């Protein structure tokens, strides 16, 4: 057992269990929330350090040799995602300390938070397809419960759509896993990849590839399958929204990256072409949907969809630079999008509304908050000194190099329309005069406000850091793209040099 690989899984599970046991001690739960997510961030960073030095780390659970037992595999992509999960976990936990009411806490907000993080981390670290399904379900069940916390009417309506479509996607995933097992007799990802490479020309492979694409496409909110997202993400408490917006769809994107680099990289003319069109249409439909919205969180929800398109574009072009760009984009997007949702939460706390027409005048009142909004907003649109600029630049450059001019043009246009949306929020929420002059907003205590501001400032600093000093993240993304495009390395790391364990 390599503790570096298992710790990021065990810490949130343990923190979740402990906070369940501390059901009647809300203060202890709050401490555990910070300690657990902070521990996850530290353990993730340690793992990243180890993986960077020693290459792909593998743990065979229960010491069963590779294709028979469950393998936990920490490669650079998975580990990078674990670190980001820890970062977002800490930010959301701090923010929740200020915003989570007694009612939500009494129904187990913090235990669910830890279990959700455990599911997400498990999905990033597992090397087994059925185990991936199980982690997805852990994550989904926790997210269902978090989504309806509070039980308002809009939440119920959103939850029915969210639950139905996510269950449908899980069933498609399960069916694909079953068929794959019937075909190959193995579910270990490395073993599956090795056997599929020997078995080319079977039409069933493409059918399975498409089933996985649909299943993860629903979870990632890609083009024709994204309708559940803007219908539900703006309904729960804002800390939950921020967590979902940052992490959940990206687990689907991660699964697509894993599937279509490791297991189905053999017919890019077919599968990746479909992904390419899906990516273009995802960008376009998301941004056009956002342009028609006049509610803070709904605009941001539609922008999640459009940004997913850029990541999928990186995967679909399938050149080293494009995959690098896709990975860079995922990291940048998770930080920025969570930050924007947290800011919408602060605005709601200050003014009591998310609707743009009820807001205004915040620049005069809280100039620093306005600046803090501009950092992630302009980064999302891709303004030069910020992280989004490099992310978009790499993806678009890869698109031009690959000769995919149509999709690249869409990507550029969508960047412009994103800027339009962000400027719309800026003008309506911060710049224009407050609609009701005599309106007194609910009082906010100073300590509470600081607690809400701390994660926002931290994430904004991360955005600035990535923007001004993109070298380290670029190097990391480059190395993990290299690993992804050379599946042999992954297979050898899991199965051993000569692929032992052939039955």
């Amino acid at each position: 057992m390599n503790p570096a690989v298992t710790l990021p899984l065990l810490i949130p599970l343990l923190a979740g269990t402990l906070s369940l046991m501390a059901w009647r001690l809300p203060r202890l739960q709050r401490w555990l929330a910070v300690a657990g997510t902070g521990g996850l961030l530290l353990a993730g960073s340690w793992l990243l350090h180890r993986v960077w030095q020693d290459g792909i780390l593998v743990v065979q659970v229960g010491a069963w040799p590779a294709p028979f037992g469950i393998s936990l595999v920490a490669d650079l992509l998975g580990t990078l995602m674990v670190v980001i999960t820890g970062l977002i976990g800490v930010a959301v936990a701090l923010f929740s300390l200020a915003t989570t009411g007694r009612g939500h806490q009494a129904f187990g907000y913090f235990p669910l938070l830890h279990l959700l993080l455990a599911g997400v981390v498990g999905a990033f670290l597992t090397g087994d397809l059925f185990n991936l399904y199980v982690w997805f379900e852990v994550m989904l069940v926790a997210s269902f419960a978090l989504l309806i916390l509070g039980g308002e009417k809009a939440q119920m309506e959103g939850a029915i759509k969210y639950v139905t479509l996510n269950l449908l996607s899980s069933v498609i995933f399960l069916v694909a896993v079953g068929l794959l097992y019937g075909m190959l007799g193995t579910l270990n990802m490395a073993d599956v990849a090795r056997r599929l490479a020997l078995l080319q020309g079977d039409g069933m492979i493409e059918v399975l590839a498409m089933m996985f694409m649909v299943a993860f496409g629903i979870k990632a909110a890609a083009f024709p399958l994204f309708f559940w997202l803007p219908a539900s993400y703006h309904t729960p408490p804002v800390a939950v929204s921020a967590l979902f917006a940052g992490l959940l769809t990206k687990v689907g994107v991660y699964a697509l990256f894993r599937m279509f680099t490791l297991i189905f990289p053999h017919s890019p003319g077919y599968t990746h072409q479909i992904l390419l069109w899906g990516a273009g249409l995802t960008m376009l439909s998301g941004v056009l949907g956002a342009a028609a919205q006049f509610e803070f969180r709904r605009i941001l929800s539609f922008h999640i969809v459009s940004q997913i398109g850029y990541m999928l574009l990186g995967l679909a072009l399938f050149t080293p630079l494009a995959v690098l760009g896709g990975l860079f984009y995922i990291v940048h997007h998770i930080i920025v999008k969570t930050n924007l949702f947290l800011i919408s939460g602060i605005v709601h706390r200050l003014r009591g509304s998310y609707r743009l027409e009820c807001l205004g005048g915040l620049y005069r009142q809280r100039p620093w908050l306005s600046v803090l909004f501009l950092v992630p907003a302009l980064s999302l649109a891709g303004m030069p000194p910020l992280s989004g600029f490099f992310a978009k630049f790499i993806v678009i450059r890869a698109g031009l190099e690959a000769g995919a001019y149509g999709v690249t043009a869409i990507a550029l246009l969508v960047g412009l329309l994103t800027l339009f949306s962000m400027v719309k929020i800026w003008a309506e929420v911060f710049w224009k005069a407050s609609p009701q002059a005599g309106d007194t907003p609910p009082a906010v205590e100073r300590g509470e406000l600081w607690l809400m501001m701390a994660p926002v400032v931290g994430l904004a600093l991360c955005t600035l850091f990535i923007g001004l000093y993109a070298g380290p993240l670029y190097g990391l993304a480059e190395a993990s793209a290299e690993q992804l495009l050379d599946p042999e390395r992954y297979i050898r790391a899991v199965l051993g040099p000569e692929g032992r364990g052939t039955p």
Partner: protein
Amino acid sequence: MEPVLAVTIGILFAAAIYMMLRRSIVKLVIGLMLLSNAANLLVFVTAGLTRDAPPLVPPGMSMPAGVVADPLPQALVLTAIVISFGVLSFAVVLVHRAWEVVRTDDLDQLKETDT
């Protein structure tokens, strides 16, 4: 035995999708139940059915003799059944709560959060 089960799975999937396309929320949940049962049954059948050959290692030997049933799909399907049971019980409670709050059983009425 496999062809019979294959047809059964097909019918289950068809019925599930038909139910999910109805307007009633209760029928939607029934559709989800049928859907997950169909998927579970499919996972169970995929590796082929071998009768009267449990994968047991006889005493004194290190591996079972002759052709035995593949135990893995059964383990998988057991896990999948437990998961779908949990998730579907959540869905049932959700529908009940939603009816208490929204007071409708018509999916077309749930358009407040739509855009």
